[in-house]
């Protein structure tokens, strides 16, 4: 019976989630049925709370009024049919509830730890394990990136001076000193001046760095190709284009995002790059990178107008169908492949007679080497033309979406097949035999270990270095300060501790209402704020170089974080105020003395000294985290990443950008820490429950953005958040950022909780996570900061 009583409210909560999901689905397709489903969700939630409160306090059912109340709760639970059945069983089998557990367990004070020498402490052991894990996974990452050390991977910076010394075309010289490019080169060990290698240059898309395209480099280089990957303008390790004589921003994609400069440089520099087979050079790019590789093929091949003389013999354009010129494809004079994800979210923009994928695809197979083949239809995956004369064309549509197309095994296999044939590579490896994801797993382990390192190092420093212990406040148990002496005594006599806080139905409903409200606000305001970021910060949105919030895509997150941080803080302090107001009014009604509960504010209490030490500790942890990345990168050429989530070595441009973004975004992080540690952490739940609820609360709004967007997409073909406003502005790319934000927002409260448990204060967690997460977000995006 006791189990049924536990299960019933839980099932009500599950129904709440289901109803919310269904409401989101209806909302996404503009069906007003979402309103009753939200109502059902709320009824199910509140009824679950009320029913559970009855089960927790069976003795209160003696009064007639209470029995009627219980019956009402029971009837309302019909919205969650399974709970209703369980409640009925409980009701009709109700006996004297003498075996019920007390509503609240008495809290036994945790035994103060006997201080061990630092090298025997758990945190020290975790620090050592983390370091070992970072180094070993870095080594293994290098092992997979170099295909078992059969490929040499090196970085170099392409500078203005280098292009001045080596170029064929004057256009291919970098114009501004501010512009330079981060390049990574993969050279198989069997390639030499005598045995030159077919070469492929890999181009990432908008807001992506070269490291996000490592999978292509790994798979091609292990098959014998020399591979170059390049950070596009203003992204990763590359510089910014700069200003013209009039002080106006030059085109931010100048030189096809640097591709022209790199191709001309390596093609012309026959001494340094004597291992390149200049008759077999290919290009591959994804999204905007796909546009860049088509531009580059035209740029170098069109003047020659003859495939046998073409510099670029093969070009693979993935995720890009925007054609800004008539006869775009007929002048590339190269074998070509086009891939476009079947579920590409950006396709909704191209839905007319001149821009639709079908029209572009037909042009792609028709417009070849200055001629038109006159085909009236085409087939996916069918090969057209001949590799021998550069007229080969093929179109692929992999069953994936835009931002994951570059991580799709089939997409990578298609590109391998294409280059193997087009660039005459002999390899025994089948295209489907891929190992790149092993490198991703290794760098993911590094990322996890990096986080483990800073958390355990923080604990170690606070516990063993008196200076850092200043960051620590008194321990708080059941909402009251407890010093170490009381705690020691309470181990034997728990009654010395303050009594646990009692949660009433009213406070529970208030808590869950604010929980749901903040999630709904976080879900609904992201895209409108992304749109406002375009309007309020037009320079960055217009791709102009500016010192005012220059990270165009992160500006959406900046506004979202600021607004939701403020909303969270207002709701948190507002609910405490309301709770106390109700206590006051009730006490007044009963003629009792008022004892207001301000205990939730206690983790906020600190002094300037404590705050200073906390800040210093946060900076040290940030430096250790990024120091380890730099060390790992220098040693093994590995950063910390998993697919789109990454922590890469720092660059000056992004540090300057980061300094600008930190203060505003910190509002969100401190708000989260306060809500997690002062709000959710005070519900009297177990640590696991507190952490899970906090993590879900912080990420569920963003998850619902994805649910709404993609349900609409899969049922109508257009994403819910495609255009916004009137006249319509494209906002679909902002959704891509949510994929990386969701895991970050999920782990943020966990970190805040862990740091809180070390310090009993709310500050260290948000300081460390804000610094690291904002840097991770910025460095994986684009910044128009005019700093070289």
């Amino acid at each position, binding site marked *: 019976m006791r189990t*049924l009583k536990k299960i019933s409210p839980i099932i009500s909560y599950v129904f709440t989630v289901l109803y919310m999901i*269904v409401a989101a689905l209806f909302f996404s397709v503009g069906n007003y049925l979402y309103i009753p489903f939200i109502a059902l969700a709320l009824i199910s939630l509140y009824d679950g709370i009320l029913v559970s409160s009855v089960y927790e306090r069976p003795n209160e059912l003696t009064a007639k009024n209470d029995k009627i109340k219980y019956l009402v709760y029971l009837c309302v639970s019909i919205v969650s049919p399974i709970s209703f059945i369980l409640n009925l069983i409980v009701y009709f089998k109700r006996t004297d509830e003498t075996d019920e557990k007390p509503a609240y367990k008495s809290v036994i004070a945790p035994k103060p730890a006997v201080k061990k020498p630092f090298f025997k402490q758990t945190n020290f052991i975790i620090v050592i394990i983390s370091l070992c894990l970072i180094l070993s996974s870095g080594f293994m990452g290098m092992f997979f990136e170099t295909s078992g050390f059969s490929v040499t991977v090196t970085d170099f910076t392409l500078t203005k001076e280098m292009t001045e010394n080596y170029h064929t075309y004057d256009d291919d010289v970098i114009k501004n000193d501010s512009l330079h490019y981060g390049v990574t080169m993969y050279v198989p060990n069997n390639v030499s001046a005598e045995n030159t290698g077919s070469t492929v240059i890999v181009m990432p898309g908008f807001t992506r760095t070269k490291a996000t395209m490592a999978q292509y480099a790994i798979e091609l280089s292990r098959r014998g190709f020399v591979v170059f990957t390049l950070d596009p303008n203003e992204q990763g390790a590359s510089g910014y284009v700069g200003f013209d004589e009039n002080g106006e921003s030059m085109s931010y994609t100048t030189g096809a995002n640097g591709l022209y400069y790199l191709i001309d440089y390596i093609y012309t520099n026959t001494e340094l790059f004597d291992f390149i087979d200049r008759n077999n050079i290919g290009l591959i790019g994804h999204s905007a990178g796909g546009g860049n590789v088509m531009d580059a093929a035209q740029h170098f091949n069109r003047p020659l107008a003859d495939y046998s003389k073409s510099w670029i013999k093969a070009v693979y354009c993935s995720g890009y169908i925007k054609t800004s010129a008539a006869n775009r494809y007929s002048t590339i004079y190269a074998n070509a492949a086009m891939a476009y994800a079947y579920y590409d979210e950006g396709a909704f923009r191209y839905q007319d007679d001149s821009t639709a994928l079908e029209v572009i695809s037909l042009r792609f197979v028709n417009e070849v080497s200055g001629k038109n083949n006159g085909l009236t239809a085409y087939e996916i995956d069918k090969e057209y033309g001949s590799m021998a004369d550069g007229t080969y064309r093929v179109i692929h549509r992999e069953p994936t979406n835009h931002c994951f197309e570059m991580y799709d095994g089939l997409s990578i296999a298609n590109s391998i097949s294409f280059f193997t044939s087009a660039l005459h590579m002999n390899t025994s490896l089948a295209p489907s035999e891929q190992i790149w994801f092993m490198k991703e797993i290794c760098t993911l382990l590094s990322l996890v270990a990096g986080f483990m390192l800073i958390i355990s190092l923080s604990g170690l420093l606070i516990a063993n270095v008196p200076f850092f212990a200043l960051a620590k406040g008194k321990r708080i148990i059941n909402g009251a300060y407890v010093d170490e002496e009381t705690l020691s005594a309470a181990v034997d006599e728990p009654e010395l501790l303050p009594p646990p806080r009692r949660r009433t139905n009213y406070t529970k409903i208030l808590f869950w209402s604010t929980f749901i409200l903040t999630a709904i606000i976080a879900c609904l305001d992201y895209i409108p704020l992304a749109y406002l970021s375009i309007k309020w910060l037009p320079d960055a949105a217009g791709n102009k170089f500016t010192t005012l919030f220059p990270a165009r895509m992160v500006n959406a997150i900046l506004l979202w974080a600021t607004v939701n941080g403020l909303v969270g803080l207002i709701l948190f302090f507002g609910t405490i105020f309301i709770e106390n107001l109700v206590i006051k009014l009730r006490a007044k009604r009963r003629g009792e003395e008022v004892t207001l509960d301000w205990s939730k504010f206690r983790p906020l209490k600190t002094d300037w000294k404590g705050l200073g030490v906390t800040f210093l500790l946060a900076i040290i942890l940030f430096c250790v985290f990024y120091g380890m990345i730099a060390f790992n990168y220098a040693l093994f050429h590995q950063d910390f990443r998993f697919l789109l989530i990454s922590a890469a070595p720092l660059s000056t441009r992004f540090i300057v950008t980061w300094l600008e973004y930190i203060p505003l975004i910190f509002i969100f992080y401190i708000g989260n820490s306060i809500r997690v540690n002062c709000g959710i952490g005070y519900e009297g739940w177990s640590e696991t429950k507190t952490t899970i609820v906090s993590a879900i609360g912080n990420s569920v709004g963003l998850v619902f953005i994805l649910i709404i967007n993609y349900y609409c997409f899969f049922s109508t073909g257009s994403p819910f958040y495609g255009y916004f406003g009137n006249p319509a502005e494209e906002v679909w790319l902002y959704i891509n950022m949510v994929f990386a934000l969701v895991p970050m927002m999920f782990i943020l409260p966990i970190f805040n909780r862990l740091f809180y448990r070390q310090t009993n204060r709310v500050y260290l967690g948000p300081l460390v996570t804000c610094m690291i997460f904002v840097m991770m977000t910025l460095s994986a995006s684009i910044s128009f900061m005019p700093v070289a």
Partner: protein
Amino acid sequence: MRGATLKIAAIVAIIALYAGFCTACAPLKSFEKDVRITAVKLVEQTDGDGNVTETTEEYAVGSVNIFNNWILPAAPSAKNEKGDPFLGWSLKKDFTSGTDDNSLLFNANGIIRYNDVKDYAEAENVTLYAIYQERVIIRNYLTVGYYERESTSGLNEDRVTAFVNNLKAYLKEQGSTDEQLQNVVIKGYNGNVSTVGQLVNDDGNVDIILGMGKNIQSQGGIVYIERETGLIMGGKTERCIALLYESEVARLAYNWMVENAGQLAD
């Protein structure tokens, strides 16, 4: 016994949850569906008694779904037996230009989308008819089009409306009546340049268009009579005003707009 009851309860609960979820989702739209499209031409046949019967002759077959469009076939012939020119493919058998909505008409070699046919599909099948007739364009007293993508054109509805209101005042001074001025229409066109060009050409009644760039003809495919380039609109440079149709009022309006283009600059 208690454990077994709980297990059964758990299984029943999971099944019920799943069933409940599916039931709740039932009114929701289903995912990807293919709609088969048959393009037909109407053929008139006369029997021995002189009776004329109309039959359909299948010309091409394709399909669409939410992620795939279909490129429509070329016109079966430039003209029909009566000498009427090919107008396009229509979902409506008796499509009449000038009366029926242009959204029911599709260009030869253009595309047709799932959204175009979804409301006309019966058992996931629709028929497209080859329409032969002269195109009828209903002209307003004056139609002013503008490129609605503000991030490119610098124009928005408020800015253009204010500009056209000033134009109306001028036209009134020049003798236009209130009734005529009520028939001055403003139309915003959104999308990339080629999309806008196609929409403008499909409408066919725009007299003057504002806010396009230099590629109005090359990319947009809009044939103009005269244009003024290098204008600033809403802070965006290299915008143009183009005259697409020659009439007395259109010419008068175009000249005034060129002279007063500075009103659109900020």
